[in-house]
C-alpha cells in the first residue's frame, strides 16, 4: 500500500526537512474532552457531550509520560472545554512536573479569581481565552449568549492575578474580520497577547463555513494587517495560504499535518491535525500497542503524508513555493482534491475549484459528532435557533403571558 518513500535530503532549508516529518511532533494538540458548556456554531470538533470512552486519568498520565520520553516539550490542550474535566488541574500539574508544558484553550468558564491566582503562580503554563468578537454582539452570535461576559471576566481575573503572557485567541470570520484593531486594543487593555487563527470547515465549522469564512477582500486586508502587526500577534502559522499574495508571512509556511503537527482526541485517537477529525486522517490510538510513539513514528498514514507534493494543479502555480497548496483540512471538508488549490486560495483558484465541484457529490463529513442534542443555555443566535426558554415565564418579564386585552 505504502509507496516507496522519497529519501530525505541532507541539508537545505528547514521547511524541506519538515516535509519529511520529525521524530516527534513540534506542535501537538490534545483535546481532553468532547464535553463543553458552549455550543459554538463553528466548533472544529463538534463538541458538546462527553464521550464515555474518553481517556481515564491514569491513561492520560501515561500519555504524558510518553510525551516526556519523546521530548515533546509542550502540548496545546483543548476540547471541548478542557477545564470541565474534573481531573484537569491534576493533569496540568502532572504534565508540568514531567517537562511537558501546557498551553490550554478555554472559554474561561472555570477561571475564577482563585484559579487565576493558581495559574499566575504556575510556571510553564499558557492560557488562551477564546473570543470571536471584539464586542459581545459579534462574539455571542457565534459562541453563545453570555460567552463574551464569561471570557472577559476570565481575562480580568487573570490580569488582576498578575498572570503573564496570557492570550486572547480569535478565529477570524467574516463578521469579526473588521475588528482586528479592536481585538488588539481589547487584548492590550488586559496586558494580554492577541492570537488570531483561520476558520476551517471542520466539525460544525463545515455547516457555517460558507456564511462565515472571510471574503477575498477581507483576506487581503488581513494579509496587510498581518504584515503591519504580525510581529506582535500570534497566528499559529495558520494563515500561510495568504503568503501567495506576495511576501511570506513569518512562521512555518507549510501544512504540518502528520509532519510536525497532530491531534490526540479525547478517546485517544490520533489524527493528522486538529482540523482533520475524519477516518481518512486517523493514524491510530494511544491505547494501541506501542502507544503514541508508535502511531507517530510508524503509522502508514503519517508515512504517506511525509513526502513533498509532486503532482496536482498547484505544483504548476507560480506561487506554489509560497503557500504549498494551502490547508489540507480546508480542501478536504469543502470537497476539493487534496493536490488542488485551497478553497480560500488568494489567487482565486479556490473559488473556481469550488464552482467546478460535482454538484451530485457531497463534501465528506466527520464520523463523529458530540454536539448537544437539545438547546443549551446561551445558544448562539447566528443560525436563528430559538434561545432556551426561561424556566419560569416571569423570568423574562413580569407581564409575560398576561393577556391584557
Amino acid at each position: 500500500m505504502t509507496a516507496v518513500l522519497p529519501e530525505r535530503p541532507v541539508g537545505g532549508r528547514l521547511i524541506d526537512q519538515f516535509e519529511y516529518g520529525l521524530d516527534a511532533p513540534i506542535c501537538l494538540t490534545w483535546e481532553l474532552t468532547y464535553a463543553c458548556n458552549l455550543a459554538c456554531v463553528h466548533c472544529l470538533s463538534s463538541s458538546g457531550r462527553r464521550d464515555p470512552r474518553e481517556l481515564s486519568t491514569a491513561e492520560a498520565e501515561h500519555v504524558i509520560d510518553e510525551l516526556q520520553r519523546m521530548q515533546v516539550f509542550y502540548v496545546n490542550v483543548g476540547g471541548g472545554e478542557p477545564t470541565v474535566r474534573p481531573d484537569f488541574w491534576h493533569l496540568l500539574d502532572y504534565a508540568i512536573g514531567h517537562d511537558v508544558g501546557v498551553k490550554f484553550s478555554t472559554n474561561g468558564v472555570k477561571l475564577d479569581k482563585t484559579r487565576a491566582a493558581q495559574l499566575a503562580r504556575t510556571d510553564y503554563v499558557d492560557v488562551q481565552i477564546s473570543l470571536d468578537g471584539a464586542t459581545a454582539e459579534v462574539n455571542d452570535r457565534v459562541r453563545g449568549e453570555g460567552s463574551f461576559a464569561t471570557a472577559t471576566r476570565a481575562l480580568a481575573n487573570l490580569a488582576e492575578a498578575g498572570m503573564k503572557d496570557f492570550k486572547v485567541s480569535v478565529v477570524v470570520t467574516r463578521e469579526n474580520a473588521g475588528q482586528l484593531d479592536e481585538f488588539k486594543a481589547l487584548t492590550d487593555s488586559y496586558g494580554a497577547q492577541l492570537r488570531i487563527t483561520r476558520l476551517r470547515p471542520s466539525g460544525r465549522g463545515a455547516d457555517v463555513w460558507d456564511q462565515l469564512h472571510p471574503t477575498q477582500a477581507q483576506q487581503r486586508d488581513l494579509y496587510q494587517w498581518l504584515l503591519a502587526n504580525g510581529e506582535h500577534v500570534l497566528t499559529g502559522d495558520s494563515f500561510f495560504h495568504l503568503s501567495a499574495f506576495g511576501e511570506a508571512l513569518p512562521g512555518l509556511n507549510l501544512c504540518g499535518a502528520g509532519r510536525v503537527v497532530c491531534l490526540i482526541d479525547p478517546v485517544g485517537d490520533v489524527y493528522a491535525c486538529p482540523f482533520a477529525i475524519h477516518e481518512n486522517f486517523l493514524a491510530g490510538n494511544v491505547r494501541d500497542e506501542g502507544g503514541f510513539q508508535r502511531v507517530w513514528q510508524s503509522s502508514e498514514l503519517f508515512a504517506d503524508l511525509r513526502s513533498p507534493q509532486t503532482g496536482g494543479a498547484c505544483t504548476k502555480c507560480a506561487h506554489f513555493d509560497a503557500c504549498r497548496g494551502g490547508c489540507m483540512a480546508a480542501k478536504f471538508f469543502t470537497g476539493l482534491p487534496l493536490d488542488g488549490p485551497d478553497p480560500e486560495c488568494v489567487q482565486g483558484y479556490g473559488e473556481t475549484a469550488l464552482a467546478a465541484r460535482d454538484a451530485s457529490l457531497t463534501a465528506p463529513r466527520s464520523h463523529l459528532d458530540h454536539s448537544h442534542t437539545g438547546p443549551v443555555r446561551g445558544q448562539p443566535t447566528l443560525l436563528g435557533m430559538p434561545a432556551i426558554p426561561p424556566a419560569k415565564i416571569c423570568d423574562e418579564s413580569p407581564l409575560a403571558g398576561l393577556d391584557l386585552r
Partner: protein
Amino acid sequence: MATDVVFDAALPWQRARSVALRPEPFGALVYHFGNRKLSFLKSKQLVSVVQTLADHPSALAAIEAGGVPEAQRPAYVKALADLARSQMIEPRESA
C-alpha cells in the same frame, strides 16, 4: 525579547542549563524551558559542536575540534551567535 549577549567565539560557552536538545534526522530541535523559544540545529555536526561547547576553552576550539572545514567555520560562528542571542547557549565562567 532582545538581550544584550554579545557572542565572542574566542570565549568559553556552554549549552544553557534550561535548554534541551531533541535529536532529529536533520540535526536537532532546541527548546528553552525558560523563555519557551524553539530553535533548530540544521546539521548533526552543529549538534555535536553545541553539545561539546562546555568541553572546550572557546567556541572556536569546539568548532575546530568538531572537524568543521575551514570554509564553513564562519557559518558555524554565525549559527552559534544566533543561539547566543536567543539564550540557547550561555557564556561559561571558567575555561
